[in-house]
Each structure stands twice: as structure tokens, then as C-alpha cells.
């Protein structure tokens, strides 16, 4: 592989985004056939990645990157090894067929162009995720998949269920994403790593880090949410609200596997610890069984498939957690198998829905004759799903059992695997028999074979399952081996066989599984009824929990708002003054530096005292004034006294201004009071008075203490001395205050007069511009000039 190719990947990987932008335009140009054109993009990408298979198979790791945000040491960098390459191939390969399928499936849908956009966006995000090396760029793509899947799931937006499913997916995977972000950041901080390559190179540092536990929990949170592990699984089946191409894509290769991808990716660095090997199998196993039980319980084709997907994800997590060589190999094989059969099955289910108008399994039957190609595709997929030879699913299951057997022998894990796989077998059987081979049923639309765009994908994927198994040697060398090596973090030398080489434990387990599966298939209906009654008996599940949590969040929020935002201003004002009181008193108390009141005993002429005393008395008079009007008249006293105080302390300009402002304040107050027709009473009950008084005393006291504390410090008069020095010499003014106002600090004054101007204008607007006048033609700016001039005249 020449190095330029991998550099090119940096650019090519963004191609889906470009295609997404072109989607609606192409759709409007050539209609639903745009799917075929757009599919060229993933197809070419598939070819591009396929070219790298040999190099990767030889054990090299391809990397490239450019700086993205140097300030944060974030790069846009990619890393291709067996793991990422396989995912890239699955995404682009299955993606190609999905795009083609979308062209047929949504033919005539008004928003088909938009759909192309979404699916290509999603593809780009997913591709970016699996090839990213830099942790942050990985995360960006990770969240992008959540966003785009939100759009895809809610595509059928007029239905409430779709919207709910979209929100649920966003909340769960988005919430998981936040955990992942935290985990990544913690990881970056504690190990200094910024890329997957760094992380993988410093596995010991990661495991020994003090923050290993929180990092692990956070990363698992993200991965589990994305990969629908119990109890975060419910978004996935609900996401079946989306059009079928979406479900196929979401659930086969991509979004749901992003979590598994991450776990596999981090296995070399995170794995091989007790925590890892405990948590993952437990959650994986639980998910596996839960998924299967729920799959059996359901009757909607897509729901069944979705729950089996949940189960399969459980298997993958389970195996990744077991962590032995064979277990990991099994996981890899299972992943490939699942991608191929589940992608195909979803498309089949979509085709059935598309052509018959129903997905209810009890309402379908005898389709094999009418839809032979689809039946063939379904058959292959189900064989693989059931784990029967000669399909890749069979190999996967064999290796799985082998891995489990080697890891733990006869154990709970093994039992879980057998039980789950048996149910999987039964479901596969039912999926083939009921709709295709069962008794003919009337469907809303008369069933017939779909167009090539609809069956091409399932057939090819089915054939790949077959070919991959038949050419197991090559598959192992090119794909499985490198990937398993990448997951294990060391080169593995794998030798896999399609035909079992003897009656080893895996073969026996397989036989048990098949036997059990047949039994389940036979008693499928009673089994379903049993599950239904048990689950109904429990009556609760994470899905309902989602509603409850959301609901209670809103209720809680509403209650909190009522408390914190009661809408009564008095409370707001009270809190404000309370806050400042606490804020002022606490520092003084903390530092123990209460002022000493040294400056109190000062001698001044007696009339100073009279003026100060009158000011104080007038304040009290304002407080106890019986009516507001009396308070206003009394207010005049303190204004005058303040003006006189300014005069006594050598501030003629201030005194002057204060007198004028005082007079005008009274005038404006009187003018407004003339217009107000207030009731004379405005009662404050005694306890309120007491409370308000206490707060006022405390707050006023705090200000006083602060002021005294300040004036007890030495003062630095240099600025004022400067003003005195140059007021006349340079600024040509004898009144230093005025020189400050218009020259030294003229900008303050400029701002100040803007305030005055605005106040005037605002008052004008308040009085003149009333909402009543706002109706009718006045609200239109496109009036002719004459009209608006008339308005202006009115204002004069």
C-alpha cells in the first residue's frame, strides 16, 4: 500500500458528506434513480478500502492525519488496522446496497432526497468513527452518528411513535456519548494520550491509572448505550419506527456496533482486568437473554429482528469481555456474520412490508411462491442466523463455543450461550417458516416480488455469508485474522475450519443448541404466550421507564421553577439584597477585619450636625409616612439635605446638580402621581415589616461596614492631584470638576448623556406607543411616505 493512499483516505472518508449535500439535488434531478448514482460513493469507498486488505492482512497498521485544533492538540487522524478496516468495509459495502435499496423503497416519497442526505451523513459519520485515531475526532463522529440516527429514526415524523423513538435514541445514545466524552477526557488527562494509537501503546499505564475505574465506567456507559446493552436497550427496537433501510443499516453494520467497535478497539488497553472481564460478560449475557426473550415475545417482523439484534450485541459484548483468543475470534466472526445476515433480513422484512403492507408475522404466510428471490435471500440469512452450515454464522457459533469452552468450561456463561443460541435458532426457523412457508394469508397489498433495488442487497449479503464461509481460509487470512489480532492487541495465528474436525465440545454444544432450538420452534406459540404473560406480570420495562423518567424530569423541573421563579418581584428583590448582605459580611467575618470606627469622633460646626440629623430624621419620616404621597413630599427633605451636605463639603457642582435634580424629580413624581389613581392604602403587615426591616438593617449595615473599612485605609490622591495640577495649565479650566467631566473623563460624560437621551426617548415611547395603537395599518412598514409623515405630525 503506498503511503499516499492512506493520506487520500483522509479526504475520501469525507466523501459521504459531500454526497449527502448533493442528495436532495440529485433526487430532484433524476428521481428515485438517484440512489443508484449516489451508491457510487460508498461503492468506490469500498473499493478503496478493499485495496488495503492485503497490506492490513500483512499486519501493518496504516495511519495518517493532519492537525485540526493545534491549540487543544486535536488532530484529524485515521488509523487502519484489521478492526477498523473490516468496519470500514462493512459500512461502505452494506452502505452501497442500502443506498440502492433506499432508492427503491422510498420511491415516490416526497422527502426521499432528504433521506439520501441523512443516510449518507450517517454513513460518513460512522466511517469517520471507525477509522478515527484521534480520540476527540472519534468522539465527534460518534456524536454525529447519534444526531443523524435521530433524524433517520424520526424520518416518519408525523407519527408520534417515530418521534418518541427518535428522542429516546438521542437521549440514550447522546447521554452515553457524554459519558464517553468524560471518559475520554479523563483518559487523556490521566495518561496524556490523545489518540487511540497512544492509548493502545500505553495499555499498562491505562490499567494502572488511578482513574481507571471511572474511565472504564464512563467509557462503558457510552459503549453500552450505543450498543443497546440492558437496561439501555429499549431505544433500539423502538427505532424500528424508521424506514427499513435505516433499520437495516443501523442494526447490521453500524450504529449499534459502534459501541462494540469501541469495546473491541479498547480491549488491548482496557481489557485483561478483573473489572473488564466481569462487567462485560454480565451485561452482555443479560442482554443476550433479554433480547432473545423479547424477540420471541414480539410478532412484528422488524421488532423480532431488532430484539435479535439486541441479543447479538449482547453476544458480542459477552465475548469481548471473555477476552480469550478464541472468544475474540468468535466475536469477530459473529460480528461479520451478524452484519451480513441481519442487514439482509432487515431488507427482506422491509421488502415484505413494502410489497404486502404488513409486517405482522401472524398476518403473513405463503410468500415463498410469490417472492422467490426474497425468500431465497431470507433463507440464506436465516440459516446463517440459526448457525447452520455452510454459512459464516455456523463458523461463528462454533468458534464462540470453542472460545467459551476454553475460557470457562461448563459454566453459567456457557449455559447462557446455549440457551440464547437455541432461541436464536427457533426465531430463525419461525422467520423462514411462518411468512414464507406458512399457510397463505391475505395481506393489505397483494404480495409480489419487489424490484431489483430491493432484493439486490439481501441476495448479495446472503451470498457473501455463503462465500465467506466456503472460502474460510481466505476470509480468515484477509479479514478475520487481522481483525482478531487488532482486537486482541497482538498478532494471532488463526486456523479456522468450516467442517468440524471432530466431535469436540463445540460440535456437541451446537447439536444441543439445534435440538433445543427445534423444541423452542415447536412450542413457539406457547413459549411466546408464556413470555407475554411473564412480562405483562412484571409490567415495567426500561421503555416505560424512559417515559416515566422524562415525565418526572419535566414535573420536577416545573416544580423547581415554581419555587425558584415564583413570578413575584418582592421575592426577587429580597434574595438580591440577602445575597449581597451575606456576600459583604462573610469576608469581613472570615478575615476578622471588622472596622474599628476610629473616625466617628470628629468635630464639625453644629450646623453640620443639624443638617446630618435632619437628613436622618427625614429618612425615618419617609419610612413611616402614612401614604405614598406624604412619603414623596417628605422625600424632598432628604434631597435638599444631601445637596446641602455636598455644599458643606466643598462640592458646589454636586450641590447645584443635586438641587436641580431634586426639584425635577419631585416635578416628575408629581406629574406621574397626577396621572396615577392609586388606592390610598398599601398595607404591609407587621411581620413583613419586621422581616423587611431586619433585612434592610443588615444590608445597610453591611454597606456601612464596608465603607468604614475602606475609609480607614490610607488614601492615594495622586490622580486628583494630577487633575488639580493641569486643569488650568493645559485644559484651560478653573473648575476642576467640570474639567474632569468634559475633558479628563469626557467619555464618561458622553456615555452619561446617551443615558439621558435614551431615558427621554424611552419615556416618550412608554407614554405614546401603546399596544392599542399597534393594531391595524400602523404595523406595516411598507406604508407610503405620506402616511408615516402624518404619523410624525401627530406626534408633534
Amino acid at each position, binding site marked *: 500500500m503506498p503511503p499516499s493512499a492512506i493520506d487520500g483516505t483522509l479526504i475520501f472518508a469525507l466523501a459521504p458528506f459531500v454526497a449527502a449535500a448533493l442528495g436532495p439535488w440529485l433526487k430532484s434531478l433524476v428521481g428515485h434513480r438517484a440512489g443508484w448514482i449516489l451508491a457510487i460513493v460508498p461503492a468506490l469507498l469500498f473499493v478503496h478500502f478493499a485495496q488495503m486488505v492485503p497490506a492490513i492482512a500483512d499486519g501493518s497498521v496504516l495511519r495518517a492525519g493532519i492537525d485540526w485544533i493545534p491549540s487543544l492538540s486535536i488532530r484529524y487522524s485515521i488509523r487502519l488496522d484489521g478492526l477498523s478496516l473490516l468496519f470500514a468495509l462493512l459500512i461502505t459495502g452494506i452502505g452501497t446496497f442500502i443506498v440502492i435499496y433506499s432508492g427503491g423503497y422510498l420511491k415516490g416519497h416526497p422527502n426521499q432526497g432528504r433521506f439520501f442526505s441523512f443516510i449518507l451523513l450517517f454513513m460518513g459519520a460512522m466511517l469517520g468513527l471507525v477509522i478515527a485515531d484521534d480520540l476527540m475526532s472519534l468522539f465527534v463522529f460518534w456524536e454525529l452518528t447519534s444526531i443523524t440516527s435521530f433524524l433517520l429514526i424520526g424520518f416518519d415524523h408525523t407519527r408520534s411513535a417515530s418521534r418518541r423513538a427518535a428522542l429516546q435514541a438521542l437521549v440514550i445514545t447522546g447521554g452515553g456519548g457524554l459519558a464517553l466524552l468524560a471518559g475520554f477526557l479523563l483518559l487523556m488527562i490521566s495518561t496524556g494520550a490523545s489518540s487511540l494509537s497512544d492509548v493502545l501503546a500505553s495499555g499498562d499505564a491505562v490499567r494502572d491509572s488511578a482513574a481507571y475505574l471511572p474511565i472504564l465506567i464512563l467509557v462503558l456507559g457510552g459503549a453500552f448505550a450505543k450498543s443497546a446493552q440492558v437496561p439501555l436497550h429499549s431505544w433500539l427496537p423502538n427505532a424500528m419506527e424508521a424506514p427499513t433501510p435505516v433499520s437495516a443499516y443501523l442494526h447490521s453494520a453500524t450504529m449499534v456496533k459502534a459501541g462494540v467497535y469501541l469495546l473491541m478497539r479498547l480491549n488491548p488497553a482496557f481489557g485483561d482486568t478483573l473489572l473488564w472481564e466481569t462487567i462485560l460478560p454480565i451485561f452482555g449475557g443479560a442482554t443476550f437473554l433479554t433480547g432473545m426473550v423479547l424477540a420471541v415475545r414480539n410478532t412484528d417482523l422488524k421488532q423480532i429482528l431488532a430484539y435479535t439484534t439486541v441479543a447479538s450485541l449482547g453476544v458480542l459484548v459477552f465475548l469481548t469481555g471473555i477476552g480469550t483468543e478464541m472468544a475474540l475470534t468468535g466475536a469477530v466472526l459473529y460480528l461479520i456474520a451478524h452484519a451480513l445476515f441481519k442487514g439482509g433480513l432487515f431488507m427482506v422484512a422491509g421488502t415484505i412490508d413494502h410489497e404486502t403492507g404488513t409486517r405482522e408475522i401472524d398476518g403473513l404466510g405463503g410468500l415463498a411462491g410469490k417472492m422467490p428471490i426474497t425468500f431465497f435471500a431470507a433463507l440464506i440469512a436465516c440459516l446463517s442466523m440459526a448457525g447452520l452450515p455452510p454459512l459464516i454464522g455456523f463458523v461463528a457459533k462454533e468458534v464462540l463455543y470453542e472460545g467459551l469452552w476454553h475460557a470457562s468450561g461448563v459454566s453459567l456463561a456457557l449455559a447462557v450461550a446455549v440457551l440464547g443460541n437455541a432461541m436464536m435458532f427457533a426465531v430463525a426457523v419461525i422467520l423462514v417458516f411462518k411468512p414464507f412457508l406458512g399457510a397463505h394469508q391475505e395481506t393489505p397489498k397483494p404480495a409480489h416480488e419487489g424490484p431489483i433495488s430491493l432484493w439486490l442487497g439481501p441476495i448479495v449479503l446472503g451470498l457473501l455469508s455463503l462465500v465467506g464461509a466456503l472460502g474460510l481460509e481466505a476470509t480468515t487470512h484477509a479479514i478475520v485474522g487481522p481483525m482478531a489480532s487488532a482486537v486482541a492487541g497482538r498478532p494471532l495465528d488463526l486456523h479456522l475450519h468450516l467442517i468440524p474436525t471432530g466431535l469436540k465440545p463445540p460440535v456437541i454444544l451446537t447439536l444441543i443448541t439445534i435440538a433445543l432450538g427445534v423444541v423452542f420452534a415447536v412450542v413457539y406459540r406457547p413459549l411466546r404466550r408464556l413470555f407475554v404473560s411473564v412480562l405483562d406480570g412484571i409490567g415495567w420495562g426500561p421503555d416505560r421507564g424512559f417515559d416515566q423518567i422524562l415525565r418526572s424530569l419535566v414535573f420536577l423541573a416545573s416544580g423547581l421553577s415554581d419555587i425558584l421563579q415564583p413570578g413575584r418581584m418582592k421575592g426577587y428583590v429580597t434574595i438580591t439584597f440577602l445575597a449581597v448582605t451575606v456576600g459583604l459580611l462573610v469576608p469581613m467575618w472570615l478575615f476578622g477585619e471588622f472596622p474599628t470606627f476610629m473616625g466617628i469622633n470628629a468635630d464639625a460646626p453644629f450646623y453640620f450636625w443639624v443638617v446630618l440629623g435632619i437628613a436622618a430624621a427625614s429618612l425615618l419620616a419617609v419610612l413611616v409616612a402614612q401614604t*405614598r404621597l406624604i412619603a414623596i413630599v417628605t422625600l424632598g427633605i432628604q434631597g435638599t439635605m444631601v445637596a446641602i451636605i455636598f455644599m458643606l463639603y466643598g462640592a458646589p457642582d454636586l450641590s447645584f446638580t443635586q438641587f436641580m435634580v431634586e426639584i425635577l424629580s419631585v416635578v416628575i413624581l408629581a406629574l406621574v402621581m397626577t396621572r396615577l389613581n392609586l388606592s390610598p392604602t398599601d398595607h404591609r403587615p407587621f411581620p413583613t415589616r419586621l422581616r*423587611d426591616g431586619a433585612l434592610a438593617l443588615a444590608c445597610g449595615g453591611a454597606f456601612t461596614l464596608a465603607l468604614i473599612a475602606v475609609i480607614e485605609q490610607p488614601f492615594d490622591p495622586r490622580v486628583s492631584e494630577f487633575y488639580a495640577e493641569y486643569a488650568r495649565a493645559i485644559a484651560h479650566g478653573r473648575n476642576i470638576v467640570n474639567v474632569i467631566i468634559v475633558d479628563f473623563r469626557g467619555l464618561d460624560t458622553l456615555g452619561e448623556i446617551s443615558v439621558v437621551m435614551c431615558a427621554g426617548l424611552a419615556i416618550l415611547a412608554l407614554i405614546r406607543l401603546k399596544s392599542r395603537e399597534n393594531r391595524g395599518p400602523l404595523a406595516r412598514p411598507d406604508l407610503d411616505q405620506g402616511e408615516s409623515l402624518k404619523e410624525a405630525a401627530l406626534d408633534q
Partner: protein
Amino acid sequence: MEGILALLVGLFFVSAIYMMLSRRTVRILIGVVLLGNAVNLLIFTSGRLTIAAPPVIPLGLQTVDDTVANPLPQALILTAIVISFSLFAFLLVLSYRAFQELGTDDVDEMRDAEPAERRLPPMEY
């Protein structure tokens, strides 16, 4: 001297805050006026007081010849007076208009922006 004025400033603050804790707009506005004066006196005191000559340079001199009152706080207060007067006038007319439109001068009864009966947001999806 400053200490005494500081106490008066404190009294101004107490009165202003007490008035502002009322629910009646007119009383709140009286509080606003008092608060403005309180702050002005605070800045005045904070810039240190002297029973001294006003900061005006006598006719024949290039600069002041003896201690004058600190001119900078005066200039700041001048700005502050103007601003607080403008804001007071605005708030006064605002409360008048609020009274006119809402029919009350009790701020706790003004519930148009935040209606008293709260409606939960829709619970559907």
C-alpha cells in the same frame, strides 16, 4: 468626619432597601431615589472628606493653592446622579404605565409576563 457620614450613608441604605422591599411601585421608586443618594454619598465619603475649599482654581492662580476637596469623586457622582435620575424617571413612568395597563401598583400582582397559573409543557412526543 467620614465615620459620621458613613453612618448616615448606612441609614440611607437601610431606608432605601426597606422601601425597595415594598410591593408598591411608588414606594419602590422612592427607594430607588434614596438608593441613588446613598450611593452618591458613599462615593463621596469613599473619596475622603475634607471641610475644605471647593475644587476651583482661584482666578489668579495656575493651580489650587491649598487643600481642596477631592474633585474626582465629585465628577463621578455628577455622572452617577445624572444616570440615576434618568433611570429613576424611566422606572417611574414605567410603573405608571404598568399601573395603567395591568391595573395594579403591587409588583407581586403583576403576573402577565409570568402568569400565576403555570401550564405544564405538553407531555406528548
